[in-house]
Every structure is written in structure tokens, then in C-alpha cells.
């Protein structure tokens, strides 16, 4: 199947296994630039698998189906090529990289994904601007990447990268988990700001993030499939009724 012209992301009949166990079983999804999509579902429904497989985690095997990103077959791109093509994943569990300072890491990452090289001074200005948005103290820059960070600090670090790397598709894997309401507001502000020029795929358990980041489309995932699709009201319904009523539909 040919991708629709202009689609940011198009997934058709996707099947994914991890160590031989099928996790995603025939998933279809189209995201256009400027759209915010939310995927909701229980633990183990395959939401994070979808995030990881889009970014190219080597442990996930695509057994069937196709993914097109900006008209290109995603399977032909390595993880770093996907990043440079404009894909970004905000990790549920960001990795610690001991000995690598946040400031250097951010600078190197920005220069890895962007064609226009910023001078050190320009970079500092952009960085300061984004850090202010997220209320991140500049002492962050000399700490090591995620080393000794609290859960909230790690998530803010992810959103800082989102703002700096300026992707076309932002995948946010449970970015709201473990955040208090103030941190949630900051993170949402970041996501909203990034979503102006991008498509967003927001994976979450909870309605509370979707109060702050308004989705255009809400998908419900059960057993590796999207079982229901709707507007923002669907998220509110799930918040009230849980997932059980949807399982009947399956």
C-alpha cells in the first residue's frame, strides 16, 4: 500500500514480537503533521512496544505490516537515522549515562540532528530559553545525563530534549507518570509548544495529561490492537468507566 501523500506517519497492519512473543497484532494508525494523537490502554496492552518499535529498538521484531515515516519505509532507517529524519521518543525510563555532562550531551545531540549548525553562543541562548520554559536550573547542565535525577527531573530532561531537537514526530511514552501537578503543567507546556510544528503521539494511562495537552484523536489499545478511536471525550469516558466495557467490543 502506498502512503498517502503528505502523511507524517502511516502504520498499516503492524505485527510486532519480542523474543518470539507477539505483542502488537495488526495495528493501523495515521498521524498528520500538527495532530496530537493519544494512545490509552492498560499496562501490557502494547503501547510502549509501539513507541519502541517506531524508534527502532533492536529487541522488537516487526513480523508483518508496514510503517512509513514522511513517505519513507521506516524499517530501512537505523535508530539514529530516524532521529535525524525528525523522530523523537521521550522515554518512559530514560537511561543514565555516567560521566557525560548534560550540557555537552545536549549540544552534541542538537548538532547531530540539525542541519543548521548553531554557534556555541546561539546554542546557549536557545538552551537558556527552553530551560526557562521548563523551569530547569542551570546547575543541571554540569550534572551527568539522568545520573541521580529524580523521576520528575528525568521527565523534564526528556521534554527539554524534545524542545531542543525540534522533531517532526514526537512520541511521548508515559511522560506524565510519576509527575506532580506542577511538573505535569510544565511538561504539558513543553509538549504543547513542540506540537505546533510536529505530530504528537502521546502514550498515557491517565486523563489528567490530556486535560493539559488536548488530543485531536484518542485511540484505545487492547491486546496489541486499536479497538476504539474517538475525540477527546473518549479519554474522559475511559477515566470514568475504565477499559472493561471496551473489551466486550473486542
Amino acid at each position: 500500500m502506498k502512503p498517502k501523500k503528505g502523511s507524517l506517519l502511516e502504520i498499516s497492519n503492524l505485527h510486532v514480537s519480542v523474543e518470539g512473543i507477539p505483542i502488537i497484532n495488526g495495528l493501523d494508525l495515521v498521524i498528520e503533521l500538527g495532530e496530537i494523537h493519544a494512545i490509552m490502554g492498560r499496562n501490557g496492552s502494547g503501547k510502549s512496544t509501539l513507541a519502541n518499535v517506531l524508534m527502532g529498538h533492536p529487541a522488537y521484531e516487526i513480523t508483518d505490516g508496514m510503517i512509513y515515516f514522511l513517505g519513507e519505509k521506516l524499517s530501512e532507517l537505523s535508530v539514529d537515522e530516524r532521529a535525524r529524519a525528525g523522530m523523537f521518543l521521550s522515554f518512559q525510563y530514560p537511561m543514565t549515562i555516567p560521566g557525560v555532562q548534560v550540557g555537552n550531551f545536549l549540544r552534541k545531540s542538537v548538532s547531530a540532528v540539525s542541519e543548521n549548525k548553531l554557534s556555541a553562543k546561539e546554542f546557549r541562548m536557545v538552551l537558556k530559553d527552553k530551560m526557562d520554559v521548563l523551569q530547569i536550573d542551570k546547575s543541571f547542565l554540569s550534572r551527568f545525563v539522568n545520573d541521580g535525577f529524580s523521576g520528575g527531573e528525568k521527565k523534564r530532561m526528556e521534554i527539554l530534549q524534545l524542545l531542543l531537537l525540534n522533531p517532526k514526530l514526537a512520541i511521548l511514552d508515559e511522560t506524565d507518570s510519576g509527575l506532580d501537578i506542577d511538573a505535569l503543567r510544565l511538561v504539558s507546556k513543553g509538549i504543547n509548544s513542540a506540537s505546533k510544528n510536529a505530530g504528537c503521539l502521546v502514550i498515557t494511562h491517565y486523563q489528567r495529561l490530556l486535560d493539559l495537552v488536548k488530543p485531536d484523536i484518542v485511540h484505545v489499545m487492547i491486546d496489541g490492537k486499536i479497538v476504539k478511536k474517538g475525540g477527546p471525550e473518549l479519554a474522559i469516558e475511559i477515566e470514568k468507566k475504565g477499559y472493561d466495557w471496551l473489551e466486550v467490543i473486542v
Partner: protein
Amino acid sequence: MKEEMKEEMKPEEIVSEYKYGFNDSETAVIRFDKGLSEQVVRDISEIKKEPTWMTEIRVKAYHHFLERPMPTWGNEEMLNNINFEAITYFLRSSGKTATDWDDVPEEIKNTFDKLGIPEAEQKWLGGVTAQYESEAVYHSIREDLEVQGVIFLDMDSGLREHEELVKEYFCSVVPYTDNKFSALNTAVWSGGSFIYVPKGVHVEMPVQAYFRINAKNMGQFERTLIIADEGSSINYVEGCTAPAYSTESLHSAVVELIAHKSAKIRYSTVQNWSNNVYNLVTKRGVAHENSTIEWIDGNIGSKLTMKYPAVILKGQGSHAEIISVAYASEGMHQDAGSKIHHLASNTTSNILSKSISKNGGRSSYRGLVKVSKKANNCRSNVVCDALLLDEESQSDTYPTMEVANSSFDIQHEASVGKVSEEQLFYLMSRGHSEQEAMSMVVNGFFEPFTRELPMEYAVELNRLLEIEMEGSIG
């Protein structure tokens, strides 16, 4: 634009330099035949017009070298492959020691250019002595150091100009009978640095020297002696690189440090010998009352390195700090570590050792912490971390404790780790290639060492590691 080019220098441009080396045609003025005999030892001493006592020590050391068996630790197989008859023991590369940069021969300058020596000329440097082949050909010292009475000379000049000082301390920390290679060094030593810091003088800026092997089969046997008098301090930095050669080379240095009461000596080394060099070095310091000795020791190259920087904590309240890293790739064995002797009460020591093994390389940590019976309330903290980059590589730890005093407090931690797939995935998701991601993790692993180095050394070390990570991804 130009600035950007420099910043963005391609790793392959650097690697090609290292791969092929950059040996200038030899400009030796005096060169001895290969091989060693008592006559060669006497001739070396005579050419240098040394005092008789030095000639006698050399000859005694030579005989001890002959009698002394090879070490039975480290890597016996590699050690037994050294052909001592195939080595040139003395080579003087220019007629005299230059005191002015203009006097340094053009060919030698070219080599230094490639090594980035001119940068070391920058104002913040305390002084430069560059060892080219056997003797220092260039030596400079800032006037303010001279005014403070700091002596900074190559060892040969040190012996000529400050014979009494040299006589008092030479072999006082590392006797020639210490081991086979300290005996060899004592017999044939040439060059190295001689530093004396007077009472209460603080040399704030790092003092640097560069060493390099340039002639085929040329052994380097430099001898360094640093004396920090009461309440003084000095930060000495030494960097080594060598061009690649097909025949084996031997580097066997001896470094002796003496920190008098309340003095502080920091001795930093980054060595990047080409992977056919045997690097067999004895480094030891003696710390008197309330003094501090720090060894910052980085071993990136060589075929076999056996080096265990040591501190003898002789005076009460003295302190030792040893931070070392080792990187072993294919065909390489880094047998490195540290030795601490707590001889006096209230002495403390910290040891941090980090190693990376790749492509079948082998890193060993060999450490000794010894506490004498009379030494009360001493503390030691030992941390050894190893990072293995693949399945074929190897890391071993041989810690030894000999504790004769029950009040001793020791912490010992050891870990062996791998670069996780999740770390690489995370970094690659930020646009870094697998190789860049690997370099980042590796550089981060060495960071506790790198942060102790002057900036330019830290940058060079990180670049070296980036080059080393090339082709490491299957």
C-alpha cells in the same frame, strides 16, 4: 569557518596519522650499536661526562639486571619475547640541548608540530621539556619559576648542575635492585626531568613534558626525579605518543618523587605508545609528614604495560591518591595498578582504577595495600571498575592486602560491566551513530580520570578514545 573546520576534524584524519605514524628520518649524531654490555654502559656515562659515582651505579645496576630474573607476574610470555640484544641503548639526536626554540632542528620541530607541542608553549604552561629520542632537545622555563628558585631541567643537566641533590635522592625511592627493569633503567638511563621545588613555593601551573619514541628499536630509558621541599607543591604533566613501528620497542622509565613535610606532588601521565611498545615503568613516591602524592595515570597504548604507581606513606598524616585508567585492545595487555604502603599512623589513601577492554584486549588491575604494625588509624578506599566492550575481551583483578594493624579501615569495591543495549538505544535516539554512542559511554566511563587532566589532555584523550571506538561496532 576555519574555526569550525578545526572543531569538526574528522576522526579518520587523526587516525591516519596514528596508523602510519610520522617518523622523520633519524637525525642521530651519536648512535650506539644494538645490544648491551658493561662497555656500552660505561660509554654512555663517559659521553655524558658523568661523575664516577654515577658510572659505578650504572655498572652495578647493569650486573644486577643480568642476574635478576624476569618478573613472574604480568605477562611472562610477552616479557620473554623481549630481545634485549635488538635494542639501541643510546642515541643522541642533536649535538646539544637547545635552550631556545630557534635552535631546535627543523625535522624535530615538524614532529612536535604534529604532536601539538606549540600549544604547550602557551602562556599558562609552567615550562616545556620535550624528550626526543634520548635527550631533551628543548627546554624552557618561565622566568617567574626561575625567580622562585624552582629547578626544572632535563635529568642530564640536573646531574651536571645539581650533582649533590641528585646524589642524595637518585635511587633513594626506587633502588636499582627493586626489579629487573629499574636495574636496566639505572644502567642506561638518559633524559627525563629533574625538578626541585624549594620550601614553600607553589608551582600553580602544570609543568609539562612530552615523550616520544622515534627511532626503530630505540629504547627510552628516561629517569625522572622530583623533589618538593617542605610546604611546596607542584603539578607535573607528561604525555606520551609514539608512531607505529613494525619492530618492537622498549620503554622502561623510572620516576622517583619525594614529597617533604606538608608538600604536595601531582604527577599526571597520559601514555599512548604504539601497540608494539613494551611499557615497563617503575613509578614511586615517598610521602613525608602531612604531605600528599597523587598519581594520575592513563595507559591507552602499548603492547604490554606493567606499571604500578606506588606511594610510601612514611610520615604521619600523609595521603596518597592514585587514579588510573587503562584501555586494552587487540593484542594488548594492560597490567596496571597501584601500591600503597601505610608505614605511619593516620595515613590515608584513595585508589580509583578504571579499565576498558575491547577486541580481545586484556586489562588487569594489580594492587597492593600494605599496612605496617606501627601504623595506627589508617584508612584506604579502593575502587576498581572494568568495562568490557565485547565477549572476547578480558578483565582481571588481583588485589592484595597485607594488614598488620587492626585499626585499619578499608573499603574495597570492584565491578565489571558492559555497555548496555538500552544506553546505546537511548543515545542513538538522539541522533548519534552507534559508534558515537559507544564513544560517549566510554568517555563518560573514564570521566573521573579525564576531569583531573588539564583541558588539552582531556580533549586529546577523548579524541583518542573516539578513534579507538572506530570499527568496534559489528
